[in-house]
């Protein structure tokens, strides 16, 4: 705004700040002054034009003129006075307006300076905060405040002083001192409080190892009601020592004392239920319905007298119910605590015999099956150590199995506690079985515990029965649980009485079979199955076929010929080759046995094939690809 000249009066139009009164005065006084001047001039003119003969009247006129002149002077003086007064008032108003304008300008300048200074200060603070925040981050949670300190000197003993203020209330302020080694560290300060919204001010200051600074980071969290608590069960034996969560050794007759500590780790009070512990005697402690405040802790106690050997596992269950509207009740079970009581040795084992018709589908069963003359019954004997000590099994022999067919059993005949092992064997149904109408089988085995752990025990299996169809029957074994044609096609070989003489030796008469069902029927009924390992093979193993009726067999692995065996190579009724899987690639391999059967009435032998899948696996010692 331009400055005004204080020495000159302001015109009426020049001062928008001039008051209305001033404008009225300035308009009236010049009019009165002009009237007085006009009266004075008229009186002077009258005295000048009066005739000289009017002498007597001249003295009167002279007096009147003086009065007029006097009045004129007075009027003129008043006029001047008024004009001067008006000018002074005008100047005064102008000065006042100027002063006000100057004050406003000064105020605006100061305000601008203050704003600039504030902005500069804010920028400096932001810059400093940025620099200080390079040394720290703070994350706010409902249950904790997580501080991360970084870019500190690579030195030991970096120390910071921390302060947390909640909702700007001094009474809710807490101080901490935290020391750490190296440039970076993370620490957490747990907080708790009732549900609600919190403003949290996290302030840290440091002057350590040559680095000085501070930061002040503010945040807020809105915390829902979190009903939570912990249950910890501790134990001790016979009142000795401190309570512990560790497994303790105990003896039958000793008393185990338990202490169950319940802590409210949530942010709302909890009403506790009655304490339940099925493995403990009468419990003492807070009654059901007691309220556990936030952060509060209470204890229950109970005891149990050890009455038997083994692991005595105990855990406690408590339910905490928050106030209405603050969530659902929470039920927690403590981690179990264990007392190990020596268990007296108890040798025991079970033995179960199962059976199925060879070549038929379906699993081994304890059920009674239907069989035919010339069919083979395969047996599986499952021995399980149900005691708590290892057992050395006796030599397995089963007179109801055909000689040389028994396979399996544990290495070294030692069966570990809880382990199981399988034996297999078989029997060819012959005319004697047919005459008897059935063939039953059971086996007895002995198990000897380690010295001092008890006497040897003998255990008998269940009995399994195959009903043998009488001569002339056309039953094809359909009474078995799951039966399907054998790979050769028709499995309904007719075992007529004329075949009995050969059946007793394990070879069916081809003439009889050809006359009824042809060569395929013969092959299906009499060509033995190939027995090999199932699942992974990692060590040498055997593949074998029953030698009865077999003239020769040639083994092929993945199409490559391995070996040919003839009847004279049979050992204990089996034609067997040994294979070493070490040379096999990981994966499945097909082993085919091309079998040439003896033929009593024809110069042309019958040939059939049997196959098994050999599975070479990776080592079981492996880092798996589980999700973790």
């Amino acid at each position, binding site marked *: 705004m331009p400055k005004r000249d204080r020495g000159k009066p302001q015109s009426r139009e020049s001062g928008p700040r001039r008051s209305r009164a001033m404008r009225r005065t300035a308009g009236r006084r010049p009019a009165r002054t002009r009237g007085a001047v006009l009266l004075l001039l008229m009186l002077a003119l009258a005295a000048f034009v009066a005739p000289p003969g009017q002498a007597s009247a001249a003295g009167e006129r002279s007096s009147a003129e003086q009065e007029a002149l006097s009045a004129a002077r007075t009027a003129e003086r008043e006029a001047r006075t008024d004009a001067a007064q008006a000018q002074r008032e005008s100047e005064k108003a102008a000065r006042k307006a100027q002063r006000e304008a100057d004050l406003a300008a000064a105020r605006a300048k100061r305000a601008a300076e203050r704003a600039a200074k504030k902005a500069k200060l804010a920028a400096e603070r932001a810059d400093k905060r940025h620099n200080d925040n390079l040394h720290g981050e703070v994350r706010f949670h409902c249950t904790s405040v997580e501080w991360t300190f970084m870019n500190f000197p690579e030195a030991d003993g970096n120390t910071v002083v921390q302060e947390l203020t909640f909702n700007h209330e001094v009474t809710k302020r807490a101080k901490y001192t935290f020391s750490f080694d190296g440039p970076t560290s993370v620490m957490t300060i747990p907080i708790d409080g009732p549900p609600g919204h919190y403003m949290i001010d996290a302030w840290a200051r440091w002057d350590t190892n040559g680095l000085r600074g501070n930061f002040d980071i503010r945040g807020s969290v809105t915390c829902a009601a979190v009903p939570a608590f912990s249950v910890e069960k501790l134990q001790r034996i016979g009142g000795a020592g401190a309570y512990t969560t560790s497994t303790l050794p105990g003896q039958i007759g000793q008393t185990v004392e338990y202490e169950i500590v319940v802590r409210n780790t949530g942010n709302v009070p909890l009403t506790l239920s009655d304490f339940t512990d099925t493995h403990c005697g009468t419990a003492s402690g807070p009654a059901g319905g007691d309220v556990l405040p936030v952060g509060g802790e209470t204890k229950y106690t109970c005891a149990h007298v050890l009455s038997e050997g083994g692991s005595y596992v105990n855990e406690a269950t408590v339910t905490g119910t928050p106030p209405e509207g603050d969530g659902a009740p929470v039920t927690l079970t403590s981690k179990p605590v264990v007392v190990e009581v020596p268990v007296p040795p108890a040798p025991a084992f079970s033995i179960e015999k199962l059976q199925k018709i060879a070549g038929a589908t*379906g*699993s081994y069963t304890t059920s009674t099956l239907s069989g035919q003359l010339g069919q083979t019954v395969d047996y599986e004997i499952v021995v399980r150590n149900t005691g708590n000590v290892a057992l050395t099994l006796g030599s397995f022999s089963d007179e109801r199995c055909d000689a040389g067919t028994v396979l399996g059993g544990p290495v070294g005949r030692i069966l570990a506690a809880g382990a199981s092992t399988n034996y297999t064997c078989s029997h060819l149904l012959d005319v004697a079985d047919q005459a008897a109408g059935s063939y039953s089988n059971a086996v007895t085995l002995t198990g000897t515990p380690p010295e001092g752990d008890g006497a040897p025990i003998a255990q008998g299996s269940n009995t399994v029965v195959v009903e043998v169809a009488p001569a002339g029957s056309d039953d094809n074994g359909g009474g078995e649980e799951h*039966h399907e044609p054998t790979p050769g096609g028709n499995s309904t070989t007719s075992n007529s009485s004329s075949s009995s003489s050969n059946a007793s030796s394990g070879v069916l008469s081809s003439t009889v079979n050809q006359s009824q069902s042809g060569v395929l029927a013969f092959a299906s009924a009499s060509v033995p199955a190939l027995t090999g390992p199932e699942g992974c093979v990692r060590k040498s193993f055997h593949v074998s076929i029953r030698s009865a009726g077999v003239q020769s067999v040639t083994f092929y692995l993945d199409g490559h010929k391995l070996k040919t065996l003839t009847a004279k190579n049979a050992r204990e009724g089996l034609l067997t080759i040994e294979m070493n899987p070490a040379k096999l690639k990981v*994966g*499945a391999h097909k082993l085919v046995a091309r079998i040439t059967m003896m033929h009593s009435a024809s110069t042309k032998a019958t040939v059939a094939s049997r196959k098994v899948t050999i599975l070479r*696996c990776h080592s*079981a010692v*492996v*880092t*798996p690809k589980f999700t973790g």
Partner: protein
Amino acid sequence: MLAALAVTAVTRLSNLRTHSRWAYPSAQAPVRASPSQRARVLGHLRFLTGDGQAELYMALESARTTSGRTWIQIELPGRPNGQTGWVPRGALESLHTVDGYLLVDRGALRATLFRDGRAIFSAPIGVGKPSTITPRGNFYVMEKLITLDDPLYGPYALGTSAYAPTLNEWPGGGVVGIHGTDEPRLIPGRPSHGCVRMRNADITRLWTLVEVGTPIEIT
């Protein structure tokens, strides 16, 4: 459904509790949606697991068709979990039996092994986080591995037929295992990517007690 397929007899092979049957495959046969050669193919039998062990299949039922062919209904491992399908009887080797099952209770964070209906082992476990949950359903023990105190898996591990529902790109396909850990303080809890973690002493005990083919129920 089965009646429409001319099935003459259906036999339950496994109750997944006290008497269950399983078998190794004898061929990489197709697994079909129903016991028919014309049924839709759901997948194929496999010989080896992703860790190079023998794959096995839980046998649920057998069905004999009017043509005399016997089919076996199996659990088919893979995504989605819980698939079943049918294979010809000849596609499987002999059926093996197990008389127990393993209950994995995600709520109680506890695994319990039953044999003949009786609990013979129980231990606290860690299961999957909410973002990588341990799947619910019926599965079985596929393989027993020795992990030699691996930091992630402890001394022993059991492979299962379960697959983590969310970790499609995980190496090995996202198989859910049962194994030990070097972080026992997280047990019981929900710290894993879907596997069931146990303390090393517990997995050692379970590993000796459980057989391959043992049914697993995850609740």
